[in-house]
């Protein structure tokens, strides 16, 4: 896991985002346990409450479940739901891009072209 100590994104968010990525991409599979909160805190050199908050966030999103006395287990992921979620993310990013485009007077057509150019460049 990568942690930026001085980033604007809170550390618990960074952890949650990376674990979410691993779960959604299938790196962490259903039934697997996340590292213990205190073990992860030790490895990342951060406080226990920070890792706990990250795990609670994942819990709230339904990605993992807290098992009494055992830790946090990865839930089986609904592929259709993941797709849905990802789609929403794409939507959000595009909306942001459109907002930014508007501020400098770019038309939707121009944005579409830019996307095509970027896709080719990649």
């Amino acid at each position, binding site marked *: 896991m990568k942690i930026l100590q001085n980033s604007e994104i809170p550390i618990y968010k960074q952890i949650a985002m990376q674990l979410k990525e691993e779960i959604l991409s299938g790196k962490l599979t259903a039934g697997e346990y996340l590292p213990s909160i205190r073990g992860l*805190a*030790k490895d990342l050199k951060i*406080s226990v*409450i920070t890792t706990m908050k990250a795990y609670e966030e994942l819990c709230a999103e339904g990605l993992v479940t807290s098992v009494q006395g055992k830790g946090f287990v990865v839930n089986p992921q609904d592929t259709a739901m993941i797709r849905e979620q990802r789609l929403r993310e794409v939507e959000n990013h595009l909306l942001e891009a459109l907002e930014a485009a508007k501020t400098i007077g770019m038309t939707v057509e121009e944005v579409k072209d830019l996307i095509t150019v970027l896709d080719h460049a990649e």
Partner: protein
Amino acid sequence: MDSVIVAKGLVKKYKKFTLGPVDFEIPKGFSTALIGANGAGKTTLLDTICGIVAPSKGEVTYFGEITDIEEGETKERIGYQAAQGMYPMSWTPYDVAVANQLGFKGFHEERYWELCKKYGVAERGERKQTLMKMSDGNRIRLRLAAVFARDTELLVLDEPGSNLDPLMRDRLCGQFREYLEEGDGEKTILFSTHNIADMENVTDYAILMYDGAVIESGFVNELCERYVLVSGERATFDKIQRSLLVEDRNMSTCFGFAKAEEKEKLEKAGAVVETPNLQQLSIFLLRYAEQQNS
């Protein structure tokens, strides 16, 4: 959440200082920082709950059921280290080992000497150098080696980070996390500090003290979210003055500190707000307490 210590109406009266009455809880499985200025009563509070001095009034419950610290093996389960005067100054590292061996069942001499070596304070079996001849930093290292060499469920450390160099303080934080991980929710740390910045990333729960009273306590994230740091122009500050608990006015910009409920109002007035970190929160809360007091 389980509490390892619950204090109710705790009072300790001295001739010139009175602690409390204070009520607080120490959550089990976490690291709790007791923050306050010098003379706020941190040491008195720690001494009172660890049975070093008897409380004048009030009740403390240990490990969920025990109300008398002298009962059975309660003290065996608590690893207490004072900031000063823990051992007679004429003792050597060897004497400290002997004393702990005799005093506690769960003391591992082997582990003690390993830690002494790791912290660079003494070689195995050191019988020459007395505490009197050691630097303050080395005395703390020795005390830490002694307390970490014991099997305990609750560590109570008075100012463990002061007088330590940055490297050793980092090592201490590592030791804290290792202890918590070992316990897997069963081991707890309570430590006092007047400099929270270096210990912030091992602090889960904080208790802030001012002049013998607990002024605020809670899990760090929740605690910090109860308040906001405010920044803005002088003109803006003239408008929002009444919402601020503490303020700092300069020519070019002003800083302030307010309750989180005021956030919207402050933003509407044109100030920028953000959630403080523990260090900032401690400073402003202590300043606020001081302001209220005078």
